[in-house]
Each structure stands twice: as structure tokens, then as C-alpha cells.
């Protein structure tokens, strides 16, 4: 049983501050400008986030962090989702920060001050499946040689460092024998190709051609990489769920606004009961998902080792709710919702990418089922 899911005063203040900042510095129009300019994220915004302590949200103060915790990271992610603010926040400030918690302080300070951008390279196929990792890290003396391919690496093109999961023993499908490496993104033999995804953010394919790594590059234990990674993934999933809740709320806000303004057949369309009931249903779904998001953040803060089911409930719900919110958003806007000139499509596209990243609905539903023993 976690602490109350109602936000604390600090959390309310954090949300208000984040909202004020993002609406000013990164409204959806900024995302559009980035897209039109071919920028996958705004490096200026990222610097400002660092100055406000967002990049250090999960880092201890002695590493330059603000140590606000996972629920706070979720609140920030949610607000970013609501305005579609693109940044390597989840990859770097949430997942890498969690994975490297025990690492040397210089790694952490780079995250806290915004100078490092981390990408997490896990998946090798179109579906999230860490254990299916086949990318080989062959041991030769004290060193390793990494060969293989990683796909759908969020923030992989912009990253200065890459956390890569490699197989040092066993075969794909096994949880043992995986090792997590922390590499400079420019290391010889590592080539990165940016992919053009529908959400217009940074996703890359990483090809490892006998990339050299040493024992110093290993995070945690050799063959025991899932230990460090598992918590990082949960942290990322919780934050991404929060972002998707923000995407839902952003799309829903646009939609109810439109329902109140738009006139058709001589009436404000929001007065049509069929649309009202669908909007009210969507409101209910968003509220229920919001509870799951808050709960996942609380669990990550209070009892991360038991948080798996809470996180998976959050990601499963957030995925479905966002899908409903953007579908209803486009449909209720009618033709204008389909035009590129209008922002609703951006929400739909981000919701789709977010649905896949770090495990889709079925992946997380299966984890919930396993946790509930069926």
C-alpha cells in the first residue's frame, strides 16, 4: 500500500512550475517548428531543463541532482507529454540515471548538468524484448568486442553515450548472460543511422562492428546486466506512461475546447449528447489511468523492487487511454483534425510510438498476468 495518490504540496508546485515553463518555452507550435526544421529535439530547451534541475530529478544532490524521485519525474513527463515537448528526458534523466545510480559520480554529473545525452540500446526486433538480446560481446582478455544491431534506440542519434545490452553468455531468450555496457557514442565500430519515425523524434538504428569495450565500461556485473537494467526499464516505463497520460490530456483538452466552440447544424457540437457521452467516457478513462500513473511513481519511489506490476498496469492503461484519446480527438475534430496544419495528428503519432516503446499493451498485460499468477 503506497502513500496517498493525491499529490503533495511539493508535487502541486512542481506541476504548476513545469506547466508554466513548458507552455511558455515549448508549446506545441515549438514542436511543429522543430519538425519543419528537421530537428528531433530542442537543445536549448534541454539546457533549460538542466538548469531547473529536471535532468537531475533522480540523482542525489552530491552528483548535482535534485533528487525529487520517480513520481516527480512522472509529473514532469506528463507535462511534457501534454505539449509534446521533445527531449531525451526519459532516456537520459530517467533511465540512464537509474541504471547508473551506483556508478562513478562523473557519469552522473554529466547527466545532471545536461552535458551528457544517453540512449538506451536494448531491442533488436520490432517488439520490445530485452531478453531476446542477441548482440554479442565476446570476451578477449580483459576486453570485450561487441557485434550486432540495435533498433528503435530512442535518442540514439543525438546521444553522447550509449547504454547497450549485450549477450556475454547464454542464448537469446535467457535472462542470464546479459551485460550492460556504458559506451561513448563515438567509439570506433559503432555506426548510427537516424530513422524517420512518425513522431518526428530521434530514433536510431545502431550497428556494432567489433566495438571494443573494457571492464570499466560494464555497468553492474558481467552476465548480470538485467539487474541494473530492470529497474531502469521500470523507471522509463513509468515515466513514459506519464508522458502518454499527458498526451491523452493534451489531446482531450484540445477536443473539449473544440466541442465548446465549433458550431454545426446550427448548434455547438459539444451539445450533441452522443459526443458528450463519448467525451465523458474518455474523461473517466483518463482519470483511472491517472491513478495508475501516480501509483507507479509512488511504488518506484517507495518500493522499486515490487513496482513491476504497478508499472505495467500504468503502461498498459496509458497506452490504451492515449489511443482512445487521439482517435476520439481526430474523429471529433472532423476533417480539420486530419490536416497537417492542425496539431491533433502530432498527438496521434506520438501516442502510437509511445505505445510501442518499452513494451506494448500485450507485453505489459502479460507481466500483470504473471504477477497475478495466471
Amino acid at each position, binding site marked *: 500500500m503506497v502513500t*496517498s495518490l493525491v499529490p503533495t504540496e511539493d508535487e502541486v508546485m512542481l506541476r504548476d512550475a513545469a506547466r508554466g515553463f513548458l507552455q511558455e518555452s515549448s508549446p506545441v507550435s515549438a514542436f511543429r517548428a522543430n519538425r519543419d526544421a528537421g530537428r528531433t529535439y530542442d537543445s536549448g530547451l534541454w539546457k533549460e531543463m538542466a538548469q531547473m534541475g529536471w535532468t537531475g530529478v533522480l540523482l542525489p544532490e552530491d552528483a548535482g541532482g535534485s533528487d525529487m524521485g520517480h513520481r516527480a519525474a512522472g509529473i514532469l513527463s506528463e507535462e511534457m507529454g501534454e505539449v509534446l515537448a521533445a527531449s531525451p528526458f526519459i532516456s537520459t534523466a530517467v533511465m540512464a540515471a537509474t541504471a547508473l545510480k551506483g556508478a562513478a559520480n562523473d557519469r552522473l554529473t554529466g547527466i545532471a548538468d545536461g552535458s551528457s545525452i544517453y540512449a538506451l540500446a536494448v531491442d533488436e526486433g520490432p517488439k520490445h524484448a530485452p531478453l531476446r538480446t542477441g548482440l554479442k560481446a565476446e570476451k578477449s582478455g580483459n576486453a570485450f568486442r561487441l557485434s550486432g544491431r540495435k533498433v528503435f534506440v530512442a535518442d540514439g542519434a543525438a546521444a553522447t553515450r550509449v547504454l547497450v545490452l549485450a549477450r556475454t553468455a547464454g542464448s537469446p531468450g535467457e535472462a542470464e548472460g546479459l551485460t550492460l555496457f556504458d559506451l561513448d557514442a563515438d567509439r570506433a565500430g559503432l555506426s548510427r543511422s537516424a530513422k524517420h519515425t512518425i513522431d518526428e523524434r530521434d530514433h536510431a538504428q545502431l550497428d556494432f562492428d567489433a566495438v571494443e569495450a573494457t571492464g570499466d565500461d560494464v555497468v553492474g556485473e558481467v552476465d548480470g546486466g538485467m539487474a541494473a537494467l530492470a529497474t531502469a526499464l521500470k523507471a522509463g516505463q513509468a515515466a513514459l506512461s506519464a508522458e502518454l497520460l499527458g498526451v491523452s490530456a493534451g489531446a482531450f483538452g484540445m477536443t473539449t475546447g473544440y*466541442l465548446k466552440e465549433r458550431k454545426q447544424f446550427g448548434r455547438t457540437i459539444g451539445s450533441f449528447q452522443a459526443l458528450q457521452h463519448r467525451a465523458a467516457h474518455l474523461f473517466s478513462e483518463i482519470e483511472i489511468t491517472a491513478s495508475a500513473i501516480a501509483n507507479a511513481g509512488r511504488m518506484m519511489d517507495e518500493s522499486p523492487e515490487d513496482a513491476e506490476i504497478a508499472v505495467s498496469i500504468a503502461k498498459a492503461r496509458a497506452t490504451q487511454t492515449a489511443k482512445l484519446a487521439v482517435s476520439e480527438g481526430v474523429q471529433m475534430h472532423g476533417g480539420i483534425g486530419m490536416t497537417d496544419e492542425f496539431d491533433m495528428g502530432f498527438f496521434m503519432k506520438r501516442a502510437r510510438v509511445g505505445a510501442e516503446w518499452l513494451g506494448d499493451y500485450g507485453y505489459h*498485460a502479460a507481466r500483470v498476468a504473471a504477477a497475478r*499468477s*495466471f
Partner: protein
Amino acid sequence: MASFSDDLDQFRSEVAAFIAEKCPQKLRDMPANERTICWGGKRFNFSCDEQRIWMENAAEVGLTAPRWPTEYGGAGLSRAQEKIFREEMAKANAPSPLESFGLWMLGPALLAFGTHEQKLKYLPEITNGRVRWCQGYSEPGAGSDLASVQTRAEDKGDHWVVNGSKIWTSYANKADWIFALVRTDREAPKHKGISFMLIDMEAEGVSTKPIKLISGASPFCETFFDNVTVPKTDDEGNSRIVGELNRGWDVAKHLLTHEREMIGGGGSGAAGGILGSRSLGAFIDTLDETLMDDPVIRSQTMELEIDTLAMGMTLERYKDMAKQGGVGHASAMLKYAGTELNKRRYEVLMSITGSEGVEWDGEHGSLAPEWLRTKANSIEGGTSEVMLDILSKRVLELPSS
């Protein structure tokens, strides 16, 4: 009357000790079901002596109404204390000492709208289990349109004469008193001219008729008022009307919110019924394990498990929000989502149990009636459609046509 510590840890040990001492072991060993609920009232048949003893022991320290003020028979606990009390009861497998519409509905109405004297008179009778109340809102043919009250109370100077009928009056055939919406001004607009009236079920001209549902026998009744005399004030000078005359709709609205939250709870993890406190997945495990090889059943079950757990979190969150300043009309969401979820849950239960589930008296005998009964959850206490109307108009502020 015992008084409890404000310190939560100390409170926990006090209340645990109280339960251990005052709730007879025999009662705690009994399996809980519909028939072991303690309703109280003049004509109540206790299922065993221990049930009566536990009710009286709890009532003595106000724990039949944990959060009501002590002066009215409650224990004056905070929400945090109440939570601990319920946790400790669950731990000790102690049943609720008393349940009633008096505790759930009339009490809250009186606390919000009653006079001090009304509270002093009616509330202790509820908390000590001596008087059992029922609710008279709906009328035949009116459905969700609660404000279209046709039951009328004619002003005869020092008394009212009530004529009409109410429907869906749960346990009216077992209740001592009824709180009812009656029309006291027939000229006023629909939502005005209604009063919230307290009527003795033993008064001449009151009769009841049980309603059979598609799920079988039910606690619901129709209740008829045939020239029933209701004094304007009782012997102690207390009005038989709660709140202002002709402003009963305000009281009713207040209570509907309560009722919604209660029924919405049906969607939470602890739904009772055939599942008891088990998850859907755990229940399926007790059946044929190959069931879960069917991808349709498996995916539906996973989805329901997720939604049920998320709904449970939402109920907790809303309770905490209510404590911190209220959730207002958004409570309609709990009613809507909780009851719709429960219907989906029971559809899957029926699917899982296959041809055994469709027997009235088979291995899962209680399932079919429970399944059918869930269909009423999204109707009673305001239909899902009414909830969605409330959400769209009051919460989302979408325009009226």
C-alpha cells in the same frame, strides 16, 4: 464510552485489542455472506447471538459509525483512523458490526441538513442498531428522472396525508422507517416543491410488495402509501422533514453522490460475490487450467485484471481527494466506470464457467444471479447515461442543447 488515541500507531493497537476482546471468536470463524450481514432494526433476526453481541459492543464505543461525532453515537474517528479500524477488522476476520441505509444514507443527510435535535433523536437509534431505515426515492414509471416525484403529501394543518408509491425500496419489508421524497407543493416547478420526509413504516396505510428480478428474489420492494398520516412534528417537537420544506431535492442530490461512490465500489478489487477477495486470475486457476489457453479469455482476463486494479487505485485516490476538499460531480465517474467494469468482469466469469455457470443451482450456483444482478448496478442510483450526462455537463462543462 471508551475514547481512542489520536496517535495512529497507538490507535492501531487499541482498536486491535478492542476487536480481539469484543468480537466473539465464533463470529470471526464464520464464513461471510449475504445472510451474515448485520442489518439491525426492531424486527431483525440475528443469525447468532454473537452477531448481536458484536453489534452492541461496537455500538457502545461508537464503532458502528466510526466517523460520526461521538455526541450522536459515532466514534469521531478521522479517515486515517477509520482506515486502520477496517484494516484491523479485516486482519481479525471480524465482520462489520452493523450495516444499514441509516448509516449509509440517512445519517449523512441528517448530519448535513438536520437540526441538532433531529440528530440527537435519530442518529443514536441508527448507531445502536435499534432502528432500520429504508430509502424511498424512485417511483414507478419515473426511472432515472428522480425529480418527477408524484407521491404527494397534502398539508392538513398539523399533519401531512401521504399518497403514492415508491419503487426499488430495498428491504422496505424489513425496515422500521423510511426516508422518502414527497411532493409538498404541486404548483412549484419540478425540482422545487419536493420535501425529504421521515415516515414510520408501521403507520397505517403503508404496505410493501417484494420485487422479483431477472436474477431471482431481491431485497427490492414496491412501497405503497394509502392516506398515510404523518405528523408535522413528533412528540419532542422535531420536524418530520429534513432540511427546509420544499427543498428536499438538495438533500436528495447530496445523498445521490454518496450512493454513487458506494455502488462504484463494486468495481474495485474487493467486489465480494463469487470471487470473494480473489482476483479473476486466481479464480480461474481453481477451474480448468486449459481455459487460459484460449487467447480470447486470456486477453479479456488480463485487461480486466489491469482495469480492476486501476479502478481500485482510483477509488482510493478519490476517497483521499474527497477528504482534502471534495471531488464534486466527478464522483459520477466512479459510479459509471465501477459498475460498467463490474458488468464486464461478470461477463468473463460467465464465459469462464461455461455450461456450469448457466445453472441456477450448480457448482457455481451463486454466479448466475450475481451476473444478472450486475446489470442493475449501472441502472440503480442513477444510470450510466445519467452519470455521463453529469460528467459532460458539470465536469467537462459541455454546453446544453
